[in-house]
């Protein structure tokens, strides 16, 4: 007799601490006591996120999702769920917004506990990206079909307008407007370009989308071609994404074979085809004008706008340029309607956003949530909280162009305008979580160093500004900063915002300005007290051995890479400060808490 039910008990660390083990054992003895142990398998799972409501128990195949379960509930779960085949209503997850309806709440309408909504990533993890048939089976190319045979170009623009889709590359410009500008320009040749030059440290949304669902981007760009009157699409992707490139090539080849690309697509009379251009990985080439220059074979440097690419773009021709994530949304908007898309998210930022959630977080991953989701939901419900039970410090969004979101903003709904209002930006969607061990000056310095290297050097505010900002941060991190330096950071930063030629230079000071605003005390500590509380700024850290606690086990002296710890066995050791490189290896190795960091 095969097993009929599976009971999944959350075995994540958070739930483990809140009695998941006891629940597991209680369920085991209950199935035996109630004589159903042959029909049920009880399994420990990984973390489902959602730890604040833990421990979690899920019963399959019914998909009953029980939260805040105690060992005492085991009896009822088995007798109701397994023996009688009913759900235990009082334990089922109810969304906070539905709380008041709890009395008359209907099992049919259980709110799905997961906070993610996957539009862009709809096919990632479902289809084989190298088989066009699987994409087609999941309504692939149905949007193109609809556009070519049932919609006029104006209908498409209108649908996009209703949807409220804004560019996902960072700036959030309304997509329909871009398309409409290009559509309105008379020209013998127009281009559709996909910006797949993903370059923010810690961001990999676009790579995953292209690797998991390349056809969605091809389909969307073909739709844009029909809408604005272009026959040629160019995908600009960095060469360091070889798998994404390979899958794009396969996808293009398969679409051509099927007649979904090339001359006279599906007998509609419309023709469209693609070319892939590889970028060498310069961050500035994510800026649209620099990207277009790079495609043309020139050095990737931005040009002043106007003229905008929509009017004078690739080879001087009108060009629609959108990023991967924006494109991947388009087929669903056409199929399900602009209204549907607009119903997701916030008033001014509709739809979803994909974030690459990384850093000091338990469940790092690719996360797609409706706009307006709060940081708390992303970090704690989906991300499962901070690693090793440490304290949340901040989240860095928008990479080198963005800023930090602190504790105070955990409940701020995240959308384009809210993020800009608090001095960060959506950026492409990197989201790096920091805990109490991260030094805010160190973080700002990291991003500034990145900007110094990636500045193309064309305009002085960026070329000189990024360098100056970096030098000041470096000085502060070495305990040599002054109050004047803090002032200068702001003056230079604000000047760059106004005067730099392109987005890179205009946003490069953001990580500094935003950390200065929210972590002024930490800057002042570095300047006035010469202290780095996180112990990241090496020049400000000192490791010392507490002779009271040291038992002379010699572990630290064996771990020290420069051999600057000495002492007899079973006698207190000491550190030669003149040789110490402040790597912290001794601090991490000491089991007796005898090494002090100050």
């Amino acid at each position, binding site marked *: 007799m*095969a*097993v009929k039910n*599976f009971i*999944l008990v959350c075995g994540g660390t958070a739930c483990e601490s809140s009695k998941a083990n006891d629940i597991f054992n209680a369920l085991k003895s209950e199935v035996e006591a109630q004589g159903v142990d042959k029909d049920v*398998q009880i*399994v*420990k*799972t*990984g973390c*489902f996120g959602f730890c604040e409501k833990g421990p979690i128990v*899920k019963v*399959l195949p019914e998909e009953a999702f029980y939260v805040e379960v105690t060992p005492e509930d085991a009896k009822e779960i088995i007798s109701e769920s397994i023996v009688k085949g009913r759900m235990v209503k009082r334990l089922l997850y109810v969304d906070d917004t539905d709380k008041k309806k709890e009395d008359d709440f209907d099992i049919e309408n259980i709110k*799905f506990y*997961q906070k*993610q*909504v*996957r*539009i862009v*990533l*709809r*096919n*990632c*993890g*479902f*289809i*084989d*990206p*190298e088989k066009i*048939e*699987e994409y*087609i*089976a*999941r*309504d*692939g*190319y149905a949007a193109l*079909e609809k556009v070519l*045979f049932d919609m006029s170009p104006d209908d498409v623009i209108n649908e996009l307008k209703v949807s409220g889709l804004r560019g996902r590359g960072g700036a959030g410009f309304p997509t329909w407007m871009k398309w409409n500008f290009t559509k309105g320009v008379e020209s013998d040749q127009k281009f559709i370009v996909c910006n797949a030059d993903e370059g923010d440290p810690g961001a*990999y949304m676009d*790579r*995953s989308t292209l*690797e*998991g669902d390349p056809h969605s981007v091809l389909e969307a760009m073909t739709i844009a071609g029909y809408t604005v009157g272009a026959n040629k699409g160019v995908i600009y992707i960095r060469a360091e*994404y070889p*798998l994404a490139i390979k899958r794009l090539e396969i996808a293009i080849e398969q679409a051509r*074979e*099927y*007649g*979904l690309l*090339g001359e006279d697509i*599906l*007998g509609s009379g419309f023709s469209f085809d693609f070319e892939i251009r590889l970028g060498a990985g310069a961050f500035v080439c994510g800026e649209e004008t620099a990207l277009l220059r790079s495609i043309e074979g020139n050095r990737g440097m931005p040009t002043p706008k106007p003229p905008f690419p929509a009017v004078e773009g690739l080879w001087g021709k009108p060009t629609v340029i959108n990023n991967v994530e924006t494109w991947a949304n388009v087929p*669903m908007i056409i199929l399900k309607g602009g209204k549907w898309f607009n119903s997701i998210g916030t008033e001014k930022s509709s739809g979803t956003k994909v974030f690459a959630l990384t850093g000091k977080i*338990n*469940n*790092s*991953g*690719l996360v*797609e949530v409706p706009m307006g989701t709060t940081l708390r939901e992303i970090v704690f419900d*989906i991300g499962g909280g901070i690693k090793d039970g440490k304290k949340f410090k901040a989240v860095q969004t928008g990479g080198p162009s963005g800023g930090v979101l602190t504790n105070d903003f955990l409940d701020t709904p995240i959308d384009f305008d809210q993020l800009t209002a608090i001095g960060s930006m959506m950026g492409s969607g990197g989201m790096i979580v920091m805990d109490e061990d991260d030094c805010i000056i160190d973080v700002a310095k990291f991003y500034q160093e990145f900007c110094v290297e990636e500045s193309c050097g064309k305009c002085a505010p960026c070329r000189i500004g990024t360098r100056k900002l970096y030098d000041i941060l470096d000085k502060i991190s070495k305990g040599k900063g002054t109050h004047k330096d803090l002032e200068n950071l702001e003056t230079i930063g604000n000047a760059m915002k106004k005067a730099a030629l392109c987005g890179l230079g205009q946003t490069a000071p953001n990580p500094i300005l935003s950390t200065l605003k929210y972590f002024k005390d930490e800057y002042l500590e570095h300047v006035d007290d010469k202290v780095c509380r996180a112990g990241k700024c090496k020049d400000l850290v000192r490791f010392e051995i507490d002779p009271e606690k040291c038992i002379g086990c010699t572990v630290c002296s064996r771990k020290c890479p420069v051999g600057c710890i000495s002492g007899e066995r079973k006698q207190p050791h000491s550190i030669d400060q003149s040789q110490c490189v402040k790597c912290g290896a001794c601090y991490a190795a000491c089991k007796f808490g005898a090494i002090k960091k100050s």
Partner: protein
Amino acid sequence: MAKMTLEELRKLRNQKKDELDKRDTEGKDVHIIIGMGTCGIAAGAKDSLDAFLDEIEKNKIDNVTVKQTGCMGLCYVEPTVEVKVPEMPDTIYGNVDAETARNIVREHVLGKKLVSEHVFDRPSKDIVKE
């Protein structure tokens, strides 16, 4: 495949949809789908793939297809694998190294039981099916 007309595309879509729903392609009703984005591969998905194929062959099981897919988004437990066996819930497994892959074949595919400690969940509903 020659160039398609609109009718042919629609026919192909319906036919492939049926195949996906029936989940039975050429007599193979067990599906093992491995997340093979750069992330999965970097975490060892290719070793898991080899282990799956080897274990399937060793046990002379002939109703299994092993396929690849993109990233499922669960970076913290890569490699990830989805296993579909008739009359069992579709299951997402995480941290599937070569040894776990072999366990999945033995315990899940043959034994019709889940492999403890490795069960995860899809992060969202499927909007295409809605």
